[in-house]
């Protein structure tokens, strides 16, 4: 087993014992160029913790470079650790770690892990959520959006239906009035020449008696008998002719 693999194994064991949840790199929504910077990722409640293992050449410069790279992960995690073999602690520049809020985990040859320096929680991180969460949220958002559009369209349809009903009623009324006006125009047009000629005989004044056979009243009601209005009214519309 290489040193790098040994360190990772020890770290995973360390976090597992503490009840942290290990996360696979594929589950993380981190830009791909950063993925190789993360050796171990764990979740502690809502906190996301990344660990970068230092296994490069044992030099102060190399350690500082690794620390700086690990620091670039702060935008995506709540806490960052740098892990290193315990033997290298003499060459570790604590100030670099302190300034960047990076914690230090030292692993001895037996695999025992010791938190030499606690990390400072990051104040801000980009949303890193699982694919499932993204999918759920997206579905929910899309559903809300669709429902809102449907609701809006339905209200619009109801408004249009009401407007159409009102219009239908108005159109019917206008049709009736138009028909009435047409009849009036027809009557005036028809009667105009007659008014000019006035050549009408008394025979034409008589209202034609319907050919229909109707039983009707055998005897007229009292108010119709000998009522001079019957004759007066039967001439209506004929006088001017």
């Amino acid at each position, binding site marked *: 087993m290489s040193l790098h693999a040994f360190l990772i194994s020890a770290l995973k064991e360390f976090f597992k014992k503490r009840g942290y949840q290990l996360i696979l790199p594929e589950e993380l929504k981190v830009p791909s160029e950063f993925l190789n910077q993360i050796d171990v990722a764990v979740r502690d409640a809502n906190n996301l913790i990344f660990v970068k293992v230092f296994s490069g050449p044992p030099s102060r410069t190399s350690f500082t470079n690794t620390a700086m790279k690990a620091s670039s992960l702060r935008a995506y995690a709540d806490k960052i650790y740098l892990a290193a073999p315990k033997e290298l602690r003499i060459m570790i520049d604590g100030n670099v770690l302190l300034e960047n809020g990076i914690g230090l985990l030292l692993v001895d040859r037996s695999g025992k892990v010791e938190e030499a320096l606690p990390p400072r929680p990051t104040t801000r991180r980009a949303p890193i959520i699982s694919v499932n969460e993204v999918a759920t949220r997206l579905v929910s958002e899309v559903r809300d959006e669709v429902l809102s559009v449907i609701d809006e369209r339905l209200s619009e349809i109801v408004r249009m239906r009401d407007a159409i009903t009102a219009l239908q009623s108005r159109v019917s009324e206008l049709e009736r009035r138009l028909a009435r006006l047409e009849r009036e125009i027809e009557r005036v047009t028809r009667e105009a020449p007659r008014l000019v000629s006035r050549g009408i005989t008394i025979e034409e004044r*008589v209202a034609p*008696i319907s050919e229909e056979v*109707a039983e009707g*009243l055998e005897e007229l009601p009292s108010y119709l008998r000998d009522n001079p209005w019957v004759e*007066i009214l039967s001439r209506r519309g004929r006088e001017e002719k």
Partner: protein
Amino acid sequence: MNGKNIKDIGKCEYGSSSEVFTMGLIDAYRRKYAFGEDYGTSDYKFGPITLGERPEIIENRGYMPDTSSIMYRIVGGEVKRVVVGPEIPLYLEAREDLTERMIYPMRNGVVDKDDKKAWDVIYEITKYGLTRFKPRDPNFKGFYVTAALSVIAPKYMYEKIFDIHERIDEETKLVKAVTIIPQPLAVAIAHKKPTCVVLESGHGNTQICPISRYPIRRAIITLNRGGGDANVITAEILKDCGYGDLVHEEKLVRMVKERIGLVPRNLDEAIKRARNEPERFRAAFKIPGTKIVIDLGENSWMRFLIGEYAFNPSHEVFESFFKRGMPRPKDVKIGDRIISGMMDMADAIIEAVQRCPVELQPYLYRDILLSGGNFAWKVPPGMEDVAVNAAEKIRLMLEEKGIENVNVILTKDPQYSVWRGCIVYSVAVPDDYEWNWDRMEGWMKFR
């Protein structure tokens, strides 16, 4: 029948009497299918000619059931939106709902143009009336309908009534033709008087309409005074006599008015006589079905005020009532004219007649027809020397103002006169005389 003259028609079909002559002028179809509609403020009188002397009557009102109620939702479309006629009591809900849901569409014979609920009620009662008499005859092509409206009905009411009949005809094919006439004209027609003055006095107002073959529209006078005003003074008298607790029930006040109210021959003389002979003129009666007895006692002379007020509210005796807060009858504006609500009836008749051609005036005074519930004043036996009926009162009032030789006629069956006039109109006006908006007569046809 073209080519025959009027007399020939009478002879060839029915003989030579005047009745036969009338028969000859009437189209056989319309002897069966003439239909009358009288839109009164309180009642709707309707029916075909075949009813004979009396129309069918329903109250001019409609009930709008609570459409949000569970019953309505369960029964759905089977429950009517507007209920009219004798079915109304079956639909009544809580008493509190009555004011809101019971719609009386007319006020003094007029329906507001935009009062949708009122027009819905008018539509329903009209449809109710026509469908009630739907014949089974295969030759039936629809009724010849004559509708009568108040003489002060505005033009939009004519349009709406036509629209309603057109709609009903579209739905039922029951209306072959429809026309609209003013109620006073119908009264004149029913009483066979081509030249006359008609006074139609209802609950809210009194219409005075000279007629000479046509209603003389420019001469029409409307007094903002009717049976309701006589109720108002009856209530005041009851208060003065210690029955103030009863005046809130209008029906009771009306009953008191009808039972004790008298029209005096001469008010001053009547008051004097009643004060001198209090027992003879004593106004006392028991309200039927109750233990309440109303007795005006020594104030019984006041019973003459009730009748007088209907005819002449300007008498000085009424001033004390006005001073104590009784409202005066309101003035009414017709066009640019203002008619005082306080004008006495004789003055109103004279003013209406004077707006007609001078030559016509004597003929108009010759026949004055009184129609409507506000003229139904009785004279108790033994009081003929002091009390008179409405016709005699009008004659006396006109005589006092120098108009003599008038023939004032109290119409018989005043409730039915308008409907009867409508029937005559329906049978007599030629079928081919189409509605003319200038003359406001003729048949409106929809098909």
